[in-house]
């Protein structure tokens, strides 16, 4: 029974409510890092990692600090500082533990702080009432992980298309950003097909 709920949350955050393509969160890195498939994959995995970690930590902060002291209005300031510190810590940890992984992910990590999808998932965890529910921690983890996977999926699709576009003959004024937005629009239209699926 609970498994079904988690699958629903996971499926919904990856496909139905894809953070990039249907909620338009995290557009800056989506367009900025989707020129090459390799860097898109690197960014995607870094985001999955940070989002999952940020979901867990903001869960504890919200439930055990902000709610008991009834200072939930400090939510935004607390979450953004936590995310910024997580990103810093992760960067230092990866640098020490695995230099090869750092070379692959390193340059993307500082960009993640201002990725609004990360703060978005933390705020949405609170808004959808997961924090106070039973199995809330698992729900936030699943939602954070799913949002990250959805981001990776959107980024991979976009970079695959953009790599092929490099050899295409595009009208001069459409090159660069305009055509990327139109492609994103078409991808987003395709993702509408997932709407209404349920378990």
């Amino acid at each position, binding site marked *: 029974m609970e498994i079904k709920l988690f699958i*629903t949350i996971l499926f919904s955050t990856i496909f*139905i*409510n894809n953070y990039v393509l*249907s*909620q338009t969160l995290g557009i800056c890195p989506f367009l900025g890092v989707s020129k090459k498939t390799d860097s898109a994959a690197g960014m995607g995995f870094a985001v999955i990692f940070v989002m999952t970690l940020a979901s867990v930590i903001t869960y504890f902060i919200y439930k055990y600090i902000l709610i008991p002291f009834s200072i939930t*209005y*400090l939510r935004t*300031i607390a979450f953004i*500082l936590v995310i910024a510190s997580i990103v810093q810590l992760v960067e230092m940890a990866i640098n020490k533990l695995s230099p090869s992984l750092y070379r692959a992910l390193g340059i993307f990590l500082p960009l993640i702080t201002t990725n609004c999808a990360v703060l978005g998932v933390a705020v*949405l965890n609170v*808004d*959808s*009432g997961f924090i106070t529910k039973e199995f809330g921690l698992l729900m936030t983890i699943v939602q954070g992980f799913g949002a990250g996977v959805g981001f990776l999926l959107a980024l991979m699709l976009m970079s695959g298309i953009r790599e092929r576009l490099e050899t295409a003959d595009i009208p001069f004024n459409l090159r660069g950003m305009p055509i990327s937005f139109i492609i994103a629009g078409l991808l987003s239209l395709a993702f509408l097909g997932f*709407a*209404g699926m349920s378990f």
Partner: protein
Amino acid sequence: MKDIIKPAAVLAAVTFCASLLLATVFAVTKERIAFLDSEAEKNALAIVLPGYSITGTAKTKDNKIYWVGEKTENGETINGFAFISESPGYSGTIRCMIGVDSNMNILGISILKQTETPGLGARSVEIASKNTFWDVITGSAVDEGIQFPWFQQQFAGLNGNKTVQVVKNGDWTPEMASDLVSQNAVSAITGATITSKAVVDCIHKGISEYNDIIKNSNK
């Protein structure tokens, strides 16, 4: 050592000032927000229990609040009940308040919170004004008085013990009302069938939870 202390002190000072500022703003606006919340609750109760006066609230076992209201009709006192239910919508949770009488006829519903797509699912809280944009600029707009969202209006009078059907007849008009009530159905919002169904689910869930409460209290 000094390299650590100074930045830490600066950061702490900045965070302290920020929290102080926010605490002040929060203290100033606290009463106003609490007032708005209670107004919102009152307005919702007035919609879901029209004509009833609220006589009290009660709590269920799992600490959910429900309201009891009563009104006098033909010399008899009749009771109405209102409760809040939540269920997942197309994006995010839909929370609505439902009012029923003792025969489980729906008196009215009010969507308290929704985060559906603007222009589609969010039309569940839209109020259909007959005034067009041109009427408003040219000053020929008619004052239509207080209006209710048409999607929520069509739930009044349906039987809560039976399944509420969702049909696709396009946007609701008062002419459709009698036909829909006889089918125990509501007309879905065009392009937002999922949201429409989610609201109906929310109501079914609320009513079945409420039925459980009654059964338990009768034992």
